[in-house]
């Protein structure tokens, strides 16, 4: 359950970042959106770091660490298999 809550938090932060990203694509000089984007980036990175230390990598190709002595990428459940 703790895993689900952390994942939900990542989903929410990442969605906020994505929305700000699209907004900034068409309003690149909006200082308020830029400040919010950078703030959310910080929070998102902290959450992802905490999640990956305990539950395994979120991203492939070197964007996430692999802790422990097994390649967790092929161990953790795939997105369409998770029972939310």
């Amino acid at each position, binding site marked *: 359950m703790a895993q689900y809550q952390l994942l939900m938090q990542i*989903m929410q932060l990442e*969605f906020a970042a994505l929305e700000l990203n*699209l907004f900034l694509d068409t309003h690149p000089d909006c200082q308020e959106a830029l400040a919010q984007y950078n703030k959310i980036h910080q929070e998102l990175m902290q959450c992802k770091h905490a999640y990956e230390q305990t539950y395994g990598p979120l991203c492939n190709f070197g964007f996430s660490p692999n802790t422990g002595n097994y390649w967790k990428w092929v161990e953790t459940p795939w*997105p*369409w298999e998770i029972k*939310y």
Partner: protein
Amino acid sequence: MWVYEKKLQIPVRVCGPNPRLASYIITQYGGPEGELGASLRYLNMRYSMPTNKAKGILTDIGTEELAHMEIVATLVHKLLEGASVEQIKAAGWGSHYADHDKALWWENAAGVPWVAAYVSATGDPVADLQENLAAEAKARAVYENLIRLSDDPEATNVLRWLREREVVHFQRFGETLMDIQEYTKQKKYY
């Protein structure tokens, strides 16, 4: 370059097996207004866009549409999970089962396969952005049809969220179109 993130954009739940609803929702996987076509339409248009802003929005919305394709795939997969062949047949999706079992496939709700002709690219940035506005409006309309067809409240929540995204994309493409029109006007004085 793309990097995969091992998570959905939003959580996807369904109330139980529902092959009939799956047979309708599959159109947003591989139908004319579906997420595959949307993603490929935008990512493909980037190469003929004159401004960095337009290339940026097409990259980012094209990438988000790929995440939506994964959400739609998960919906169909979960609606078929645990469904018996009898249930699939009774739901009128025996024709899909004959060719694909419970595998996903890019087709519309009538089983017609996805074709590249669903996607247009003229090389004219104004015409292409107007195509995108129409595409977003049509995708929104199809999600509204699916919401009316849905008898699964959990699936309806996901469809509502996807519908909302099409509204935001429409807005951003509208802003991009105005920007490109401004850009092409200025270019005449060079």
